[in-house]
Each structure stands twice: as C-alpha cells, then as structure tokens.
C-alpha cells in the first residue's frame, strides 16, 4: 500500500510541476489553484507512504517519479526531445525504483 501511495504522491507532484510551467505562461488563478492542489495532495500521499517506508527511499522515489513522469509527459504532449540519453536516464530511474521496491 505504501508504494501505491508513493506513486500517487509522485503523480501529483508532476501535476504541480506542470502547473508551475503553465502559471509562468498564463498567470491564471486556475493554474495557481491546481498547483496548490497538486502539491498538497502530493505531500499528503508522501506522508502516508512514509508511515512505513524509510525517508531516504520514499524521497528518492518521489523525486524520481516526478522527474521521469514530467519528461515522459513532455515527450508525449509537448513534443520534447526523445533523445536516447533522456530515455536511458528515465529507464535508470524506473529500474532503480523497481530495485528499491524489491530490496525493501
């Protein structure tokens, strides 16, 4: 269950980060609201996940999901570069996350 919470925390963080970029462009209150909701939900789920997981693992995976998820969304929705280096780093993050799940 803790890992599921952690994945949700990472996904909500991604929404928060996407809203930061959007807010820079449109300066709308909707983006600001979604930014707060995204990060709020993210922190809430992260604290649920940390009830059982150690801080180091939870924090690293949370950041990893945010960064790789953001890059994947960028590639699919915003036509960002699909350079092999970016794909390789995303694979490293996902591989390490699965490894952490297995050893903990």
């Amino acid at each position, binding site marked *: 269950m803790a890992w599921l919470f952690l994945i949700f925390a990472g996904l909500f963080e991604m929404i928060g980060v996407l809203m930061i970029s959007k807010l820079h462009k449109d300066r709308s209150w909707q983006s600001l609201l979604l930014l707060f909701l995204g990060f709020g939900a993210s922190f809430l789920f992260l604290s649920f996940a940390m*009830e059982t997981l150690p801080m*180091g693992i939870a924090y*690293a995976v949370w*950041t990893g999901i945010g960064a790789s998820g953001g890059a994947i969304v*960028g590639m699919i929705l915003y036509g960002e570069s699909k*350079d092999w*280096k970016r794909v390789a*780093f995303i694979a*490293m*993050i996902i591989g390490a996350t699965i490894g952490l799940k297995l050893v903990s």
Partner: protein
Amino acid sequence: MNANWLKVFIAAFFEVGWVIGLKHADGVMEWAATVICIIVSFYLLIMAGEKLPVGTVYAVFVGLGTAGTVFSGIIFFDEPFKIAKILLICVLLAGVIGLKIVTEDNATEGAES
C-alpha cells in the same frame, strides 16, 4: 560563493527539514514548522532558478536533498543502512540529475523546474 548558489544550499537544507517533518511531525507546532520548511524551500529554489540555469539548480538541489534525507534517516532516526539500498538510490539520483542536465542542453519548452 555566489549568493544564488547559497540559496540553493539553504533550500536543500529546508527540503530535508520538511521531509523529516512529513514523517515524524507530531502536534500543531511541528506540522506548522514542516509547512514553513516547504514554503521556504520552494521560495528559495524559485528565486535561485530565476538567476541560474534551472536544470543545474534542480540537479544540485535534488542531489543534496536526497543525500540529506538518506543520511538524516540513518543518523537521527535509526533507519537501516543497507548497501543495496544506498547503491540503488545513487542510480536513481544519477538518472534524475542526468535527465535534468540533458534536458537543459536541449533547451526544450516546458522543461523548467
């Protein structure tokens, strides 16, 4: 040292503070401190990112944040020290940092923060 880089280091310090708070905070005062840490950390990071390259700032920040959380967990809260765990966290961190730095080189839109 450049004052903007100093902000990045202080931001990472507060980042570790709120992570500890999310796990261990108990009572109104400690939760309030946790929220303050979140705000200070974000604020400093955004300020630093306006003057410095965002990808590099984030890479340094997340590296310090991860190292700080792992070590404070082990040192202050008796979390288990496992080599496999530390190595995997290093691989994950290398992926995040690499991704941020490569993305910055490409200067893609929407890649900030």
